[in-house]
């Protein structure tokens, strides 16, 4: 006869079904009726998608480098951004534009970064957020470090990081969970499970029922939400961030969504996943779903949609123009690669810089 010393469960939350109807027989959070807020967030989601489309167009026409699309992630991303306070800290991976736009990162910043210009990481609008992070899952520990800084300084700030279904297999993420547990850090870790890690399906990362349960390793509250349901994502994020801010420690949320695009513009997903799967996923996508709900509730209509589309398209175009103007008329000189290495330039680097100046045009740029 064994003694049970610990018991856990992972709950799944969904409020809006794929057709934008409220799921029957459950109490909906009040924010489901906060239509001003929901329409604002809907606008952010649409802006994010229109931006994404433009970025891909720029890449296809040779005006932008490899780009990682966020198509299908808009609810998850905007919910994260909306739940955070300006003074909180976000540690992104590489496709969370929907979060970042909420936080003041400019569309031009995104284009500069993927356009091969470091100035894209100089977020004027989100001065302490971390830069885009390509080495998978490492950002989770940077967020843990930020959370530690906040805790040590007694600041009521929260650090938030995201990781993918693939990245959730990496030690950095798992050690971040453990750190959050060890020090009860004000840290929220969001697993954006979009079913694919480039060509590797979720099922290959491990055979566990959920990814959320990785938080149980550290004894952290761990839940799963429909990542295409803005209301569920936002409800969960606010619950987690509030708990973290009030000193209750770290939280893990798995948001289940789908990567509707190729992994990046350098990828061709048709090589490894069936079209039917993608088509099925389109039926779940977050924007149509929220729009249907807002229309049902009588707070949205075609005229508003029309106006929003035009407004976003114009803003996106302006950002694209600004980006192209910067890289064309104000490119970084060769010396830029030396000038930010150290606060004070070491002697030997200064010598290399002087030498490099003799070859200002070499290689030119692509």
């Amino acid at each position, binding site marked *: 006869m064994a003694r049970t010393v610990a018991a856990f469960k992972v709950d799944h939350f969904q409020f809006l079904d794929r057709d934008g109807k409220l799921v029957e027989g459950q109490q909906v959070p009040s924010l489901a009726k906060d239509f001003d807020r929901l329409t604002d967030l809907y606008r952010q989601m649409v802006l994010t998608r229109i931006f994404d489309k433009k970025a891909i167009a720029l890449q296809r026409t040779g005006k932008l*480098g*490899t780009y990682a699309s966020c198509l299908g992630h808009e609810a998850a991303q905007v919910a994260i951004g909306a739940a955070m306070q300006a003074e909180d800290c976000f540690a992104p991976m*590489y496709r969370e534009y929907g979060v970042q736009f909420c936080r003041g990162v400019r569309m031009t910043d995104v284009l500069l*970064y*993927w*356009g*091969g*210009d*470091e100035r894209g990481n100089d977020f004027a609008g989100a001065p302490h957020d971390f830069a*885009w992070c*390509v*080495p*998978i*899952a490492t950002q989770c520990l940077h967020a843990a470090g930020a959370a530690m800084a906040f805790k040590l300084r007694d600041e009521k700030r929260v650090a938030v990081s995201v990781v*993918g279904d*693939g*990245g959730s*297999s*990496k*030690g950095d993420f798992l050690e971040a969970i453990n750190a959050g547990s060890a020090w009860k850090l004000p840290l929220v870790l969001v697993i954006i499970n979009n079913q694919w*890690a*480039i*060509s*590797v399906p979720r099922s*290959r*990362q*491990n055979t566990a029922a959920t990814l959320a349960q990785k938080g149980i390793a550290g004894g952290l509250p761990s839940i799963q939400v429909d990542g295409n349901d803005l209301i569920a994502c936002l409800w969960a994020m606010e619950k987690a961030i509030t708990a973290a801010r009030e000193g209750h420690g770290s939280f893990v949320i798995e948001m289940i969504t789908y990567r509707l695009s190729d992994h990046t513009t*350098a*990828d061709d997903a048709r*090589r*490894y996943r069936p079209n039917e799967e993608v088509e099925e996923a389109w039926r779940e996508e977050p924007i149509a779903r929220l729009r249907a709900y807002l229309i049902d509730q009588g707070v949205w209509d075609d005229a508003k949609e029309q106006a929003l589309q035009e407004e976003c398209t114009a803003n996106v175009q302006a950002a694209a123009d600004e980006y192209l103007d910067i*890289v064309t008329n104000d*490119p*970084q000189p*060769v010396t*830029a*690669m*030396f000038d930010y*290495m150290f606060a004070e330039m070491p002697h*030997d*680097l200064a010598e*290399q810089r002087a030498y*490099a100046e003799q*070859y*200002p045009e*070499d*290689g*030119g*740029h*692509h």
Partner: protein
Amino acid sequence: MAAITLIEGVTLALARALEEDPTVVVLGEDVGVNGGVFRATAGLQQRFGEQRVLDTPLAEVMIAGMSVGMAAQGMKPIAEAQFCGFTMPMVDHLMCHAGRMRNRTRGRLSCPMVLRFPTGGGIHAPEHHSESPEALFAHMPGIRVVIPSSPSRAYGLLLAAIRDPDPVIFMEPKRIYRWQKEEVIDDGEELPMDVCFTLRDGSDITLVTWGAMIKETLQAADQLESEGVSVEIIDVATISPLDMDTIVESVSRTGRCVIIQEAPRHCGVASEIAAGLADAGIWNLLAPVKRVCGYDTVMPLYRNELKYMPSVRRIVDAAHQVLEVS
């Protein structure tokens, strides 16, 4: 017999190894159905099955650590790191285990694994996709480091690396993956991993390099030849262990040497070669040994990456400098 590219040479060697040795297993992220992000493993899973070509969870420490474990237990893992920048989490298992297994156990266990990955810049890739970390691996005892620079050397050296009973890091210069085509016979002939390849004989100056910089070095050599300079070109190819003898012998004839390396200069492989010349080669040196390298900075994002990498002009200028001296 068809003309193939460097990356096709890699694929050909992998296929042959999977064919001839049942213990060979190819593993990594996206190496299966997707055939690798550069297509180096294209078709291999379809041909050899999921038991021989494994897509792994996204965890480099795991890939390195499990490869060490598999290798020590009779398998021949050929692990792929998707890009040079993502080998850093693997350093621990390579340094502390792969390079030590045989020595630690006085030969009872060994670690015949291969870690292959695309290296270097110039392909317009995102951050962390363009580094050249060969010096880090070359400083690790017990590990061989190889970088081919042609389709035939990719084929022959990869076969040698796979058949070698010790760990080998096989770095593939992605910028020249598809640069040149070359006739390569799939005859299973491997190339030696302990000698440099002299690509061109000359008498006035020795240009030493490896990997993708071969391209600019050859162009620089053409330009120098057109000025009447006789240029010897050495492709180091096997970075560790390093065949200093071939280089010293060459410089004993030319008296002049420029080493070209894409990686940062400080504590790079070019410095090791220059140090060898400052010792064994000192009496034959007619001029300073110049290193034309990447700068001691972070590799810039793609818009300025070519400004970082040694250009033909930088190589030619350095050659002129050492040639002027007399």
